[in-house]
């Protein structure tokens, strides 16, 4: 019997979603002695739910399964999502896969290549430090970097982050990285040297992939199937390390194939009392439905990600007294500069997809300020630039196209083994009109309204991208590229419809649809992550981000989730100091 069952509930807390945020909360709550039930909509390919919680062995170096056959879900036939740029597109221009973060035990952590940078001090105080931008909602976070630093440090230890303190732009730290960085990819050595010649400051990326054996999981053996793949040897720690630790307490029950559809409340709708979910582990009924189950708890944690969390709240008409649920949707605006060099780089088949980053385009310089002012903007901010490459031969073949050129093109491999890629994860300014809402007619396999994205970038993102892309193309040419090309995701301009990445943002970084703030009139959750309207509900994913910063969101959302859970149990971490 679970701990909480003694007082009329099934657990102290029910957590919806088993990705990095839900796993972090499960870990923190169970460490504090609470019982939790973790509901995951997708299937469990990650680990046995029986001690000693061994890997299931489902992950493999298999491009077909992972990139062509929806192995990690969601299957767009069951869970279509829709997209439009604005209402001028009508109800939608795309139905199918939109920001399809994995729907599987472990969520987005399973397929990520684990770049886990921290945000910086200024990212929490953008409005105070830089001021407003017309047409955007620049905000300060209701907490500072110093408030979050101890939780960043804990998150790095829980996941196991390899890195080094050589990034001159990084925020202060209270201690070293848990592991030294892993081996440099050959291509990254070349592009980093070229970046340095251009006056940039590349550094080894903080990465949640073991460089040495760590907490019983082995060092990465550079198999090359990193981004978009589950790790067959568990060298990637996010979020399996947190889930396994939670299970080991005996206070965490994980229920895969449990699709939470309804938040139950008290009659006044002041408190959540539990959830109803569709049991997708059961065969469909004769009517083609899934059985409904119900669980009760003292607390509820929403961690389905910044797409599914607002969808759940909107469907239940809860938590939305501010009218902001689903709004302020942010992605990272990606600037992609690709180039092919003369020699094989092996980047696509060996190593960890990305081993180096540079941050120089976040703060910018005199030239970027001039570019901003020329466009009538007070400032622009880019994002981290990833130096890497990770395409399998099936996906290269699809890009090479049909015809007589195909066999030679594949042997030359300009789109895989000779390809190098800079991806800038540019800061995306919050706009109230960018949002996730409920599609008026498209339904999922269970009759529930599909989530719909309405999104178009602010001028800021376009100006920033246009400024940075030529710089990156110069670095690419100095790296030995025989040709270069620049594009963005989402695509813009006359040829947007022909982008191989599609019309919708291709990034999996999604934020801001239930923003955190000081004021219940214009935010959805309070500074500790609780819903203003239902204080026993916490949001533990990147929906709460008030701004997107130019860094990958995962470590920050794990730190925030851990902080929320520790505050809930009255067990906060002490303030930290720079070392």
């Amino acid at each position, binding site marked *: 019997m679970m701990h909480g069952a003694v007082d009329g509930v099934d657990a102290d807390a029910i957590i919806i979603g088993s990705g990095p945020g839900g796993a972090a909360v499960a870990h923190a709550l169970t460490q504090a002695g609470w019982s939790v039930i973790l509901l995951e909509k997708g*299937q469990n*390919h990650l680990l046995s739910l029986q001690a000693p919680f061994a*890997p299931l*062995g*489902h*992950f*493999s*170096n*298999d*491009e*077909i*399964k992972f990139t*062509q*056959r929806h*192995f990690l*879900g969601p*299957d767009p*036939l*069951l869970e279509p999502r829709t997209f439009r740029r604005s209402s001028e597109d009508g109800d939608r221009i795309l139905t199918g896969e939109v920001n399809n973060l994995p729907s599987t035990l472990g969520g987005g952590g399973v397929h990520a290549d684990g770049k886990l940078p921290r945000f910086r001090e200024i990212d929490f105080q953008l409005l105070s430090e830089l001021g407003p931008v017309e047409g955007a909602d620049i905000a300060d976070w209701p907490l500072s970097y110093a408030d979050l630093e101890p939780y960043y440090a804990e998150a790095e230890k829980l996941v196991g982050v390899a890195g080094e303190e050589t990034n001159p732009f990084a925020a202060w730290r209270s201690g070293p990285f848990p592991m030294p960085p892993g*081996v*440099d*990819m*050959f291509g990254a*050595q070349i592009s980093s040297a070229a970046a340095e010649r251009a006056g940039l400051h590349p550094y080894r990326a903080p990465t949640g992939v073991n460089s040495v054996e760590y907490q019983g999981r082995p060092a*990465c*053996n*550079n*198999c*090359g*199937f990193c981004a978009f793949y589950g790790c*067959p*040897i568990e060298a990637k720690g996010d979020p399996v390390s947190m889930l396994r630790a939670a299970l080991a307490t005996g206070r965490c029950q994980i229920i895969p*194939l449990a699709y939470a559809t309804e938040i139950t409340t008290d009659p006044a709708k002041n408190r959540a009392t539990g959830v109803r979910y569709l049991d*997708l*582990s*059961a*065969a*469909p009924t004769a009517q083609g439905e*899934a059985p409904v189950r119900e669980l009760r708890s003292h607390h509820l944690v929403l961690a389905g990600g910044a797409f599914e969390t607002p969808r759940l709240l909107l469907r239940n008409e809860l938590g939305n007294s501010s009218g902001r649920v689903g709004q302020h949707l942010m992605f990272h605006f990606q600037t992609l500069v690709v180039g092919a060099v003369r020699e*094989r780089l*092996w980047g696509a*088949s*060996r*190593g960890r997809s990305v081993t180096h980053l540079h941050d120089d385009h976040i703060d910018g310089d005199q030239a970027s300020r001039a570019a901003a002012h020329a466009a009538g903007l007070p400032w622009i901010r880019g994002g981290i630039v990833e130096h890497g490459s990770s395409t*399998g*031969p*099936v996906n*290269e*073949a*699809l890009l090479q196209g*049909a*015809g*007589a050129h*195909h*066999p*030679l093109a*594949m*042997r030359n*491999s300009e789109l895989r083994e000779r390809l190098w890629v800079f991806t800038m994860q540019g800061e995306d300014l919050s706009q109230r009109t960018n949002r996730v809402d409920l599609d008026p007619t498209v339904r999922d*396999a269970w009759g529930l309204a599909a989530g719909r994205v309405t999104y178009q970038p602010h001028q800021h993102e376009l100006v920033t991208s246009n400024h940075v892309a030529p710089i990156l193309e110069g670095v690419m040419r100095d790296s030995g590229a025989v040709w270069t090309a620049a594009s963005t995701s989402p695509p813009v301009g006359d040829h947007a419809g022909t982008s191989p990445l599609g019309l919708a943002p291709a990034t999996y970084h999604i934020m801001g649809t239930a923003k955190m703030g000081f004021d219940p009139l214009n935010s959805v959750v309070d500074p500790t992550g609780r819903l203003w309207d239902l204080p026993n509900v916490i949001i533990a994913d990147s929906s709460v981000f008030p701004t997107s910063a130019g860094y990958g969101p995962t470590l920050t959302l794990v730190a925030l989730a851990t902080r929320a859970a520790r505050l809930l149990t009255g067990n906060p971490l002490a303030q930290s100091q720079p070392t």
Partner: protein
Amino acid sequence: MSAGLTPLQARNLIALMNQLVPGDELSPAAGDSGGADYVNGLLTAFDFDPPHIWAGGPFSGRHGGAASFENWIALAPWELVAWRSRIEDLNAQYHTGLDSLGAEFAEMPADAQTEAVAAASDGFRELVFTHACEALYGDPVYGGNRKMSGWLAIDYRGDSQPSGYSDQEVSAP
């Protein structure tokens, strides 16, 4: 409608794949490397339990560890619903599309084949091209990439676990 390809359809599909993803003196064509077997494997995936949709793991056995790719992974109940529907649709697309090329497609002269391919629907041509690429460069467990001929032609090792690559192979090839 029965699942899978008839021998005649398979022969025509091989010829079509060879048109879309041809070979040369160093590389095999997609059809000749098991392309029709790959498609037939998908179209008849539900002849097996678990269905042959997702190959098992964690290792192929080619680089150490126990060979386990043929331990196909079970689909959850609603995943079965989706894949049954998808494969039923694929069967229909293949039967219709291949029939539209004509029964004698494989025997046609090259120019006539090219004309017939151009006359096929964009959707069918795109489907076959996608599957030709998957067949030639996906893992052989799915039926294509016969004797790893697709990978050998591009000097690609494929899966590498559990041996992986040494630090030296990553940083200074």
